[in-house]
C-alpha cells in the first residue's frame, strides 16, 4: 500500500481570477482605457457619483462607458444610461461581489478602442469585492458622511487595496455632524499616505478635483502603461 503524501502546492486560491484580471488589465492599458472600480457599502452614492461623472466626462468630449453590478435589479443601469453613455448591467443574483470573468463577459461586443474611461460599479459591499481584481487600474473606496467616521477601522482590508478614499455626500456633513478630521485620521491609520477626495454628487462640490484626478490617472496610464493601483494589488 502506498502511504499518503503531502504535496507542496503554494498557489493563490484566486489564481484564475488574478490571471484573467492581469490579461484584461493589459488589454485596457493597451487601448488607453482607464478602468475604475468603485467599491462601497450599499447606498454610499456610487451610482449618483457615477452619473455625474459620466455626464461631465461626456461634456468634456471624453468617451466613457460603465458596467454596474447589482444583486437583482437594473435600476442603477437605467439611472446611469440617462447620461447617454453606454451602460451594461451585471445581475449577480445574490453574489455579493463582481469577479473578473463577469466583467469580461459583459465587455463582449464593445470595442475598447471606443472608450477612454470605463467605470465598474461593484456590488454594494465593503468586504467581499476586496479580494477580486477586475483588471482595473484604479480602485476607489467610497465612504459617505452619513456612515460614521470609523468605516476605515472596520474595513481595513478594503482601504488597503484601494488607491483613493472618496468621501461622498459632503453636503450632508453638517446635519450628520460628520467629524472630518477623525475620518481623515482613521483613513491614515489603516493606510498611511492614502489620497483622499471629497465630493457631493448633489451640489457638485469637489467634482472638479475628482474629474481632474481621473484625467491625471489616464495621462499616467498612457505615458507609463501603469498606475499606482496595479502595483498595489499584484502582491
Amino acid at each position, binding site marked *: 500500500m502506498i502511504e499518503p503524501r503531502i504535496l507542496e502546492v503554494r498557489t493563490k486560491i484566486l489564481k484564475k481570477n488574478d490571471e484573467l484580471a492581469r490579461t484584461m488589465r493589459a488589454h485596457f492599458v493597451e487601448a488607453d482605457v482607464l478602468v475604475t472600480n468603485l467599491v462601497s457599502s450599499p447606498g454610499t452614492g456610487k451610482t449618483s457619483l457615477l452619473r455625474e461623472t459620466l455626464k461631465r466626462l461626456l461634456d468634456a468630449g471624453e468617451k466613457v462607458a460603465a458596467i454596474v453590478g447589482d444583486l437583482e435589479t437594473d435600476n442603477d443601469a437605467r439611472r446611469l444610461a440617462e447620461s447617454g453613455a453606454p451602460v451594461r448591467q451585471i445581475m449577480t443574483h445574490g453574489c*455579493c461581489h463582481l469577479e473578473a470573468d463577469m466583467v469580461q463577459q459583459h465587455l463582449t461586443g464593445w470595442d475598447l478602442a471606443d472608450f477612454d474611461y470605463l467605470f465598474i460599479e461593484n456590488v454594494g459591499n465593503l468586504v*467581499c469585492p476586496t479580494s477580486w481584481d477586475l483588471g482595473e487600474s484604479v480602485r476607489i473606496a467610497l465612504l459617505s458622511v452619513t456612515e460614521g467616521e470609523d468605516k476605515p477601522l472596520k474595513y481595513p482590508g478594503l482601504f488597503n487595496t484601494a488607491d483613493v478614499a472618496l468621501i461622498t455626500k459632503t453636503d450632508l456633513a453638517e446635519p450628520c455632524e460628520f467629524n472630518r478630521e477623525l475620518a481623515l485620521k482613521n483613513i491614515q491609520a489603516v493606510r498611511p499616505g492614502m489620497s483622499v477626495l471629497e465630493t457631493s454628487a448633489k451640489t457638485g462640490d469637489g467634482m472638479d478635483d475628482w474629474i481632474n484626478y481621473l484625467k491625471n490617472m489616464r495621462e499616467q496610464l498612457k505615458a507609463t502603461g501603469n498606475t499606482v493601483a496595479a502595483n498595489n494589488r499584484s502582491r
Partner: protein
Amino acid sequence: MHELSIANSLVEIASEHARANGGQRILAITVRVGPLSCVHKSALEFSFDLLKQGTMLEGAQLKWLDVPVTVFCPTCEREVELPGIQRFRCPECDTPSGDIRSGRELDLETIEICQQATADA
C-alpha cells in the same frame, strides 16, 4: 458570502493538483491566510464542508496556517509585525507605514493525497 466562491476555487485547485500527481483522494489541505485577505475562516470552513461533498475532497480536513501582518518600517529599516490591522504604525518606533510585506495571503499551501479511492481499499 464570498467565501462560497473562494471555497469553490479551493476545491477546484486542490483537485487539479491531486489528479496531476496521481492522487485519488485528498485527506487534508492547508490554507495560508492573512488578516488582510478579508476571509472569515468559519465561513470558509462552512462553505468548504458543503462543496467537498461528492468530490475527491470528501472527508478532507481543512487546516490553517495563519500569517501575521508585517510592514517595512523605514525608521527601523526592517520588517515589523503589527499587533492588529487598525493601526499601520511601527510597534517599536510609531512610524506610519503602509508598505505591507505580508498579511494579504490566501493560498493553498499543501494537500495530503492518497492513491486509493477509499480509506479501506
